[in-house]
C-alpha cells in the first residue's frame, strides 16, 4: 500500500484529501505545516506528497525546494495545490520542481487520477 503525505494548514482540506484517498485504498499521513512535513518525510519517506503552497511560516514552495535539494528525495513526486493562481506563483511552482500543479478548488476525480498516475509511473520507474 502506498503512503501519501498530505500537507495543508487547513484541517478541512486535509480531512477531504484523507477521505478521497482512503477510498482509493491509500494510506494517508497528515502534516499541517512545513516543518511537520519535512519531519514526516525524514521519518518515513512517503510515495507521494500532496502539498499546499500557502501556509504560514514555511511556504509549500520552500518545502518543495528543500525536498528537491535532499539526495534521497530528488525524485519524490509532489503534487502542488494552491488557491493562488497568479502567474508568478505558477511559474515558481513549476521551476521549483513540482511534478503536478493543481489549482484549488480541484475536482476530486482529477486529484485521485493524478495521484494514481504519479504512483504508477513512479513504481514503473522503480521497477525498471
Amino acid at each position: 500500500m502506498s503512503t501519501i503525505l498530505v500537507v495543508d494548514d487547513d484541517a478541512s482540506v486535509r480531512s477531504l484529501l484523507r477521505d478521497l484517498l482512503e477510498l482509493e485504498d491509500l494510506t494517508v499521513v497528515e502534516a499541517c505545516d512545513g516543518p511537520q512535513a519535512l519531519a514526516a518525510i525524514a521519518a518515513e519517506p512517503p510515495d507521494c506528497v500532496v502539498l499546499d503552497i500557502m501556509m504560514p511560516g514555511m511556504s509549500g514552495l520552500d518545502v518543495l525546494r528543500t525536498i528537491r535539494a535532499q539526495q534521497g528525495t530528488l525524485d519524490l513526486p509532489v503534487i502542488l495545490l494552491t488557491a493562488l493562481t497568479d502567474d508568478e506563483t505558477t511559474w515558481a511552482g513549476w521551476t521549483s520542481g513540482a511534478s503536478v500543479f493543481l489549482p484549488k478548488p480541484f475536482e476530486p476525480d482529477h486529484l485521485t487520477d493524478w495521484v494514481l498516475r504519479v504512483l504508477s509511473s513512479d513504481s514503473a520507474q522503480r521497477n525498471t
Partner: protein
Amino acid sequence: MTAVETGSPSTAANSAPSLNRIVAYTVATGLVGVAAVAALDNALAPHDYWSTGWVWFVGVTALGILGEIVFVPLRRGVGWEQLTFNGAFVALAAMLVPPLYAIAASLLALIIVDTVLRRAPIKILFNAGAYASAASALLLIFLFFSGASSLFSVQSVAALLVGGIAFELVNLRILTMLWWALGEATPKETWATEWPLSTASGVFGVGLATVGVALGQTTPVLTPFALLPALALWYSYQTAARHSESRQRSASLVTFGQAVSTSATADEIVPKAAEALRRVFGAQIAQVRLPDGLVVVASENGSSAPLAAQDWPPALSNWGAQPRTLSPSELPRDWISGVAVRLDLGEEEPAGLVELGGLTPERSLGRLLPWLPRQWDLDEQDRPILAALVASLGSAIRAGATLSALRAEAAKLSAIVTNASDGICLLGPTGDFQLWSPAMTRITGIDAESALQLGAESPGLAALRSAISSTTQSGRIGLDWTDDQDQEHYLELGVEWFTQIGDQAPSAITTVRDVTEDRRAERLKSDFIATVSHELRTPITPIKGYAQLLLTKGDKVSPEKRDRILGQILERADHLARLVEDVLLASRVSEGTADRVRPTVAVENVDAVEMVRAAIAAVPELTGRTTVTLPTEPVLVSADPVRTGQCLTNLLTNAIKYSEQGSPIEVALTTSDERGALIAVRDHGIGIPSSEQDKIFRRFYRVEDPLTMTTGGNGLGLFIASELATAMGGRLTVDSTPGEGSVFTLELQPPTRDESIPPATLNSERESM
C-alpha cells in the same frame, strides 16, 4: 538792500535764536534809533534843508516808494532777498529834509509798499524795524559828524558816506541774524560773503544821492546822469544775484542727481525730482504728469493739489523731447509762463510730461508793473540741460518700475516655493543644492542650512542627491529613502532637467512628496486582495470536493461517514458565508470621516452579561485558560446582540491568536453611570507597539511580524469590530505594552429608556472556566 521775503523756512540751527526773538530785537533797535533821532533832532546842527513842506514830504515818500519797489531779487535758499535802493533814498532824504521827516517818509514808503503787496504783518514789522535801525544809524552819523558845515563839504560828504555804509552794514547785521534763525547760514558765513556787496551798495547809494542832489542844485539838466551810480549798483546786484543763482543751481542739480540715482519706485523718485528741477531752473512751479494720470506738483510753497481735469494739456504726442514754450491757451490756470518737455518712459509706454512755469503774480501792483515781480522763463542755454535732466528722470522711473515688477515677481515666486506643500529643491550644475524649500525640511528632516552648504553632508542628503543625479531625463521616480534618523520613507520625486541662463551644465528642479503612507495602504490593500481570494477559495475546495465525492462514489461510503461528510460541507459553507459577509461589510463601509458609510445595526436594550456569556461559549479554545468576571445581576445596554457577539468573538479569537498557547486570558464586565458597560478582554501575548495602536483598527491592517507571517487573518476583524461598536453608539479602545499583552475594551451605551438596574459592583461574582 533791505526787505526780505521768505518762503517756507528750513530748520533752524540749534544754537540760533528764534525768529520771534530776532523780530523783537529788530523792532526794539528800530524804536531806539527813531527815539534817538527824535531826541537829537534839534540838538544837531540843522542843514539848510531844501524843503519842509508837505508837498516835499509826499515827493520824498514817493521816491521812497520807488526805492522800495525797484529791486533785484537774490535767491537765498528757500527765501528771496530784495536788493533795493533804500540806502540811496535815505541818504537823499537825509540831505533834503529834516531827520524825522526822512525817517517818517521812509517808513511810510515801506509800509505802503508792503501793505499793497500784502506781505505778512510780522514781515512788515521786521522790515520796518530793520529799516528804522539802519536809517537812524545813517542819520545819526551824518548829522553828528557833518556838523554845521555845508551840505557838500568834504566833512559832510565823508559823514554821509560813512553813514551810508553804516546803513548797509546794520542791515546786513540784521540779515545775518535772520538767516541764522532760518538755518540758512551762520552769521560768520553770511558776513564773509556779503560785506563786499553791502559796502559797495552803501558807496554807490550815497554816490547816487549826492551826485543827484548836487546836479539838481547846480545843473538840473544833468540830473539823469546821476543815475550812473545806480546803474553800477544795479549791475552789482545782478552779478550777485547771478552768482547766487549759480550756487543754487549747482546744489539743486546735486539734489536732482541724488533723487534719480536711488533705486526706488516712481512714487519715491518723482516728487524729489520735481522739486529739484524747479529749483535748478528757478521756476515757481514744476509739474510731472505720469501716464497713469498721476500729477506731482512742486511749488514754492510746497506741494499743492493735483490739477482739475480742464487743465490737462492736449494730446501728449505733440510734445517733443526738446523743451517747448507753452502758448497762452496751453498754460494751466494760474500760470503766466511755462515750458514743457516730454517725459519718455520707454518705447511701449505712453509718455509723461514735465512742465516748469511761473505763476500769476499775486498782487495788483505786479499787474501794474509786470516787469517787477519775477517772470519766469527758460534761457536758451538751459533748454538742452532741461531735456537731458528729464531724459534721465525718464530712465530712472523706468528702472524703478522694472525694479518694482521684479520685486513683486520675486516675492510671488518666493511665496509659492515657501508655501507649497510638496518639497521643492534645485540641484545645480555642479551637484550642490541651490534651493531647499521649507516643505523639504518638513519631509526630509534636513534643514536648509545643511542642505545648501557645500562640503560634508549626511547620508540622507547624499542619497537624495544621487537619486536625482541618476535620472537621465525628466520624469517621476519612486525612491526608498532612509532619513538621518534611520526612518524608512517612500518618496515620490518629480525631476525636471533644464539649463539655467549662464550655466553650461543642466540643473534639476525636483518636487518631493512623502508617499510612504500611501504606498503602505496600497500594499495592504493588494495583500488583502491576495489573502482574501485565497481564503474564499479554501472552504470552497472541501465543499465541492465532498459533494463530488458523494455524487461519484457515494455508494462506497458508509452512512456514518456520509453524515460526517455532509456535516463538513455544511460547516465549511457556514464559514464561507461568514467570510463573504465580512468582506462585503468591509467593502461597503468606507473609511474616512467626511461621508462615512456605517454598518447597519439593530439596537435594542439587551443584557450585556448574557451577551458575554454567549460569546465565550462560542469560542471553545478559551476553555481552561480564561478568567471571567461578571456582575451577578443583568446589566442592560443599548446594543445589537448579534453584532456585539461578532465583536466579542473577534476580540476573543484575537486574544488567542496573538498569545501563546495556554497563556491566561481575562474577560471582565464593568459598569459606570455615565459610560454604560465596559467589556474588557485581556491577553498576555505579544502586545502592540504604541505607534501601531491607532492603526490596528484600520481596514486591512495586521500587525506584521517581518520574520514569519504567523498572524494569518485578513486584517478586517478589528476594523469591522470597531465600526460596529461606533455604529451602536459605543467604541472600541486598546491599551497595550509590547511583550506584556493587550487589553481591548468595548464600550456599550446605557439603555435608551430609564429601565436601568442599579449598577452592580465588580466583586460580586468570579467565574472560572
